[in-house]
């Protein structure tokens, strides 16, 4: 049966590139359902809680050396993903998803932050 979400998540933007990348990463796992649940939890929190308060918790962080970039920690079963996101005038925008394999240090984000920043720049120029 077709299931339409109870929520519309107004203000959430999901570019095609991110959409494709996310499902490629997650659907290859046997734990995709757990990841979906975790992402749904986090997006719900992002929807109703100011980002500076979320960053006081353990699942969200502001990337200090990368302007306008935030990270969302998606840990579910054996998968440990990060979603980099940002904001534009009308809401949040998911930019890049990747497996966290280089530790929690922000220096491990260099390659991925660059991808996110490049996508953000393109989107802001559209």
């Amino acid at each position: 049966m077709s299931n339409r979400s109870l929520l519309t998540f107004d203000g959430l933007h999901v570019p095609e590139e991110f959409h494709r990348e996310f499902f490629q990463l997650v659907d290859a796992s046997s734990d995709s359902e757990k990841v979906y649940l975790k992402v749904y939890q986090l997006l719900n929190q992002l929807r109703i809680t100011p980002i500076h308060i979320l960053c006081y918790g353990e699942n969200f962080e502001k990337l200090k050396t990368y302007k306008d970039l935030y990270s969302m920690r998606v840990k579910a079963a054996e998968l440990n993903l990060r979603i980099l996101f940002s904001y534009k005038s009308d809401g949040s925008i998911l930019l890049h998803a990747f497996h966290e394999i280089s530790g929690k240090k922000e220096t491990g984000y260099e390659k991925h932050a660059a991808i996110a920043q490049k996508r953000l720049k393109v989107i802001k120029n559209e």
Partner: protein
Amino acid sequence: MLQRDMSQEFISKISETLGNKVEMEEMAKAKIASAILTKRYELKMSQTDFADYMNVSQAMVSKWESGENNFSISTIAEICEKLSMVFDISISKTAVFAANNDNDIWVKGMIDDGAHHHYRPETTWEQLMLAS
């Protein structure tokens, strides 16, 4: 290259997997998690200090704030009492207006048979029930 916004497709795919029951659970848990984290932020406490204050483990605070705990109503009441907050539960009919295009509204819920129905905004619940 102009990028299409896939937010509807993204949420729909996740929603299809989870189902409305889980969605409702998660919506409630997110509200509780948000309230607890906001309170800890206002109190300027670390998770460890907050855990001591609430007389629970730090791991439990982590679960609360991550929206991973299945709270009983009694536990929510205890938390609210300790943090000088109140909670309320709202239950209503399951009509959800998920999109609004040219005065047509997607309606699902009690009349959901898997198809999408178009109704005018002024359509009454009685008419919706008859249509189903």
